[in-house]
């Protein structure tokens, strides 16, 4: 992390500003050495040649899709998801006859949890386990190339240095998207068979939005795992750090938040105000964890009857409009989750930015 390398990354950014596309020229190995004035446009790739990050992303995607970790994770997640949806579908079938006037019954598959159910819902499972996908496809992204001795060879090709990390990130996101689409398709098919109802357009669109949301959420973990792979030379170290962060932020955060909220807003006499204050504190604290952001966004995206995610507002709505359960359109639901959506995007971009900058500042040599 030297001053020179900082200036290097700035130089890279400046070169980038010069635009790669519009400039055409012959492949350099056929042309004579040019004067200095001509050499600047040479930074561009020849017309019709894919950008470096695309080449890297294509190769990494192929690697990912043929890897054992891809097969294992897809199978595990599909089994877990199918199990959760089977449980929900069974419960749903028994209550469905009573549920007149419930729109989007199909989507209930994904998050419906009846009282006393043992198996967590599909979305709970995804919020918990999906980060593993991001970690699996990112933890050895950069340090793997280092230890294999391929990184110096890669960056000495005519590509920008950031093409390496950009390509890997894009490939990871694509891999995760493939897995999510596959899982949702399998789960949807199970739902159709079990419930005997077809999703309508609104429900399909909600699922599409949810998949985008899930990819962004897992993208956060992918970016974090890539950061670990930049910072730690050993792939095992990198994996363990990423997994530790996952444990703390998804599993233990609930406990910690409960403890802190109990101190900050204690529920002494159990009055309604105290209970609400405690719940509000808990929620506000847990909003710093990505899994909470994702869970909330999931709820409001998939469940059109959720009108607000704010507890105070929810209480108010309940008091005043108890008898009027209303259904939101997709746009209205999106408005409800917009803060969570933006929050997730910001976290993911932030994590990737940190990984990017750390990678650009690093020396190439091992």
């Amino acid at each position, binding site marked *: 992390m*030297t001053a*020179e*390398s900082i*200036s*290097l990354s700035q*130089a890279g950014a400046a*070169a980038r500003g010069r635009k790669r596309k519009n400039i055409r020229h012959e*492949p*350099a*190995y*056929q042309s*004579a*050495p*040019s*004067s*200095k004035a001509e*050499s*600047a446009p*040479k*930074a*561009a*790739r*020849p017309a019709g*040649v*894919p950008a*470096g990050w695309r*080449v*890297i992303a294509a*190769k990494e995607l192929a*690697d990912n899709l043929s890897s054992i970790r891809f097969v294992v994770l897809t199978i595990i997640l599909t089994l877990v998801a199918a199990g959760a949806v089977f449980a929900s579908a069974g419960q749903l079938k028994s209550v469905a006859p009573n549920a007149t006037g419930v729109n989007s019954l199909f989507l209930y598959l994904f998050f419906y949890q009846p009282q006393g159910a043992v198996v967590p819902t599909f979305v709970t499972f995804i919020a918990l386990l999906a980060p593993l996908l991001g970690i699996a496809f990112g933890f050895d992204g950069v340090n793997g190339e280092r230890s*294999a*001795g*391929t990184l*110096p*060879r*890669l*960056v*000495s*090709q*005519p*590509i*920008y*240095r950031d093409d390496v990390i950009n390509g890997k990130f894009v490939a990871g996101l694509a891999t995760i998207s493939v897995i999510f689409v596959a899982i949702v398709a399998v789960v949807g098919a199970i739902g159709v068979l079990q419930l005997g109802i077809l999703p309508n357009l609104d429900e399909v669109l909600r699922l599409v939005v949810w998949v985008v949301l899930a990819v962004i959420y897992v993208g956060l973990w992918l970016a974090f795992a890539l950061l670990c792979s930049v910072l730690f030379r050993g792939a095992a170290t990198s994996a363990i750090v990423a997994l530790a962060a996952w444990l703390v932020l998804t599993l233990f955060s609930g406990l910690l938040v409960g403890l802190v909220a109990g101190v900050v807003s204690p529920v002494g006499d159990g009055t309604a105000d105290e209970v609400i204050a405690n719940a509000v504190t808990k929620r506000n604290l847990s909003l710093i964890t990505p899994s909470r952001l994702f869970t909330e966004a999931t709820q409001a995206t998939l469940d059109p009857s959720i009108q607000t995610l704010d507890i105070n507002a929810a209480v108010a709505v309940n008091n005043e409009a108890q008898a009027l359960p209303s259904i939101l359109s997709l746009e209205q639901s999106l408005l409800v989750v917009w803060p969570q959506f933006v929050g997730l995007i910001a976290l993911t971009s932030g994590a990737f930015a940190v990984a990017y900058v750390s990678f650009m500042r690093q*020396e*190439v*040599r091992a």
Partner: protein
Amino acid sequence: MAVAEPLVPRTAGQSLPAIKTRALTKKYGDFTAVNKLDLQVKQGEVFGLLGPNGAGKTTTILMLLGLSEPTSGTARVLDMDPARDPIAVKRRVGYLPDAVGFYGAMTGRQNLRYTARLNGINRKAADAHIDELLERVGLTNASNQRVDTYSRGMKQRLGLADVMVKRPSIIILDEPTTAIDPAGVEEVLALIRELANDGAAVLLASHLLHQVQQVCDEVGIFVSGKLVASGAMDKLSSSLGTGPIEIEVAAPPPADGVKAAALKVNGVTSVEKDPRDSRMWLVKAKRDVRADLARALVEAGHPPYHLRRVGDELDEIYRRYFANYSPEEATPA
């Protein structure tokens, strides 16, 4: 376009140096890795950048490729500035890193194809060229095996093919002969010589003087970030001045006659029995007296059947420069 062309296209402006650095310096905090390096490599020549480990060879190479920014000084590669225009430089410079690695799960051919794609070479042109390169480095039969299964020497040869995929005008090789067996070294060196004959400039960084001297047109001795000597091999050794040298001689007896004849040669300081080999005489002289010594022995009726300078020029060079590292082997005054 690929097949008919020469493997390394000659570029216009042959007179331009392929690589030229002026006062190139790289500092890491207080540590100076490369200290005011002035280096010049001509087109079509093999330049050996020789120095012990940690001399700053790799740092220099990374600056030439634009992968590391110089603290001060300038580098010109094919008259381009690698710090400002790294992509254009990297398009024309092939680099074989120290301890080169490949993607083990991919075959040798797939690895080369990936390099071709990164260089924006279209698949058809690349495939023909890759076949040719694999043939040339003797990996045609192994080309569809996973690189995991390759030996170190095979990987090194694949590395040379990989460097050639982009048809570079300059080839930079970092320790290309380290960690491979002697037969492998010979193969690699022969390939390097071939590449240079095709017209590319080759910069060969190594700490193994003996191995690389046979392919280098010029060498630079690089120690602690400084180029302490450079030039053609023979000039370099003569520039070292006249240190005392040792010559092994074996000639038919009588022994006294041999000793007397040798002692008469101008410059010889002592003649003794070689303690390691009783058949040999060890002649010490102030200069290289081999020609005079041979003539004197023939004239005296003892035609020598063995006459060898103990430790060649390179050993001398090594002692002079590299040994500065170890205090007990101080250079003779």
